[in-house]
């Protein structure tokens, strides 16, 4: 793993991209990393495109700027591909991970000539199957960890179980659903 991994999230206000970036920061923190998780703030409301960021590092990172040349880009809503230049500045060593039911190559034409890896995961369907609702956050988190290797998978899965157990202490049925969503996404993500 690189000394520092930088990730940029694209979502829409209200969809939970910010929450997903914070969950990733949590998961990385739990494996002993130094983390940053921060959204870019403006006056936007529900539905507007929003951006959030993660830095995950072996050492404390002092930089407090936004991320312009990320190693990975996560797109929580496929429709953003047509509204935002999501792969801008994206390292071609890295990957873009899109919530989509399409095959990776089907998206290449919409990515402004990006030549690196494209990954897709049908987070919406996985979420419906495992949680009965469209909460794409957990599957997207699984896909990012799988693709980036930023956290060792085994630690990640174990840690997320604890974290869900804590979060859903009063709704235990949610623990298993989220765990299934996580693992399913890790299995199903298509790396193109």
């Amino acid at each position: 793993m690189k000394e520092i991994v930088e990730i940029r999230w694209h979502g829409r206000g209200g969809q939970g991209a910010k929450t997903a970036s914070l969950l990733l920061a949590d998961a990385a923190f739990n494996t002993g990393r130094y983390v940053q998780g921060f959204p870019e703030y403006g006056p936007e409301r529900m539905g507007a495109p929003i951006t959030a960021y993660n830095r995950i590092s072996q050492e404390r990172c002092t930089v407090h700027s936004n991320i312009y040349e990320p190693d990975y880009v996560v797109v929580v809503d496929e429709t953003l591909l047509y509204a935002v230049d999501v792969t801008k500045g994206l390292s071609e060593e890295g990957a873009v991970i899109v919530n989509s039911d399409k095959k990776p190559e089907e998206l290449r034409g919409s990515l402004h000539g990006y030549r690196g890896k494209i990954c897709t995961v049908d987070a919406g369907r996985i979420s419906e199957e495992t949680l009965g609702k469209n909460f794409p956050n957990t599957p997207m988190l699984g896909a990012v960890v799988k693709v980036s290797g930023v956290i060792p998978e085994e630690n990640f899965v174990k840690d997320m179980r604890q974290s869900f157990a804590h979060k859903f202490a009063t709704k235990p049925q949610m623990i298993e659903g989220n765990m299934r969503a996580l693992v399913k996404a890790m299995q199903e993500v298509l790396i193109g």
Partner: protein
Amino acid sequence: MGIRERLSGNEAVAYALKQINPDVMGAFPITPSTEIPQYFSQYVANGEVDTAFIPVESEHSALSACIGAEAAGARAVTATSSCGLALMWELLYVAASSRLPITLACVNRALSGPININNDHSDSMGARDSGWLQLYAETNQEAYDNMLQAMRIAEHPDVQLPVMVCQDGFITSHAIENIELVETDAVRAFVGQYRPEHSLLGPEPMSVGPYDVPAYYMEHKRHQAQGMINAKRVILDVAREFERMTGRGYGLIETYRMEDAECALVLIGSSAGTAKAAVERLRAAGKRVGLVKIRAFRPFPAEELAAALQNCGAVAVMDKCAGFSAGGGPLFAEVCAALYGAAPRPLLVSYTYGLGGRDVTVDSMERVFGELEETLRSGAAAEPCRWLDVRG
């Protein structure tokens, strides 16, 4: 003994306040400080603190209520940003001159207009001479640590002044980062209880807030000025004690790679971290560069800055606040004054930067160092008041 956690700056400050368990909090929502009273009122709702929370109808009333509470012998806290701090303006002076050591968590945001919710220091910089102590944080950790030290400093009998604990809106307030927390028992033992010698609810009646005639007004102001002078020593004493507890040391300023620096930056807050990354890159390329970060802006560490900077060739003073003096920002003016008596002294350049959330990158900081090198070579600052990363 520390507890490893990951928290946003606002969570860290709210958590520090929870550990301190103040008597009264009065607060009104304003972005980006809103989360602090939000988290805190949840602690209140859950019975995790003894604090009485006053959900006031404005920032003006937030500080007014804190003034009443502090005068009554309670430890009172509030939080605000930008226009909220501006609305408190008159009461900032009242709190300081009445010698009420209130604690205010200031989450720095641009002060209108046009309206903008993002970070710069124009809110608290405008209040720099209201008589409040001001501590600034680079990280969530520093925001937390400053909060734990703030009341000890403010309430010290030789100081008796209110304190602003400042951090950068969104940049640190809403960013999750690693942090090391102190155990609550240790926090409470460190911060202690507020026991003023006199209060409205004390055994003797007390009157606060007189009309002051010319025969006494200056003596009161002189006494107040002494509180600020004494605060330098108290800040350092409290920091030493804090270091013994946590291992984390603090001063009035922090110097970074200054031992042999030819070119240096002076700056405040979160961009110091970004600038440190630039210093590391340039050092790796053999450049003698460093920076000085100001932690305590009030009291102003003039001697300490002069000592840290006087052997540099060129210094960029970075104001995250547009000072409309037609001669650079407030930090620039004060650094110039601090170095006036130093010999030799460096060439000084003013940079206004990062206003209204304009992102501050490592590349930008490197560019400033490049321009400083140029200034040093030419022996004069061609254009002493510059704006960084502004289109034109």
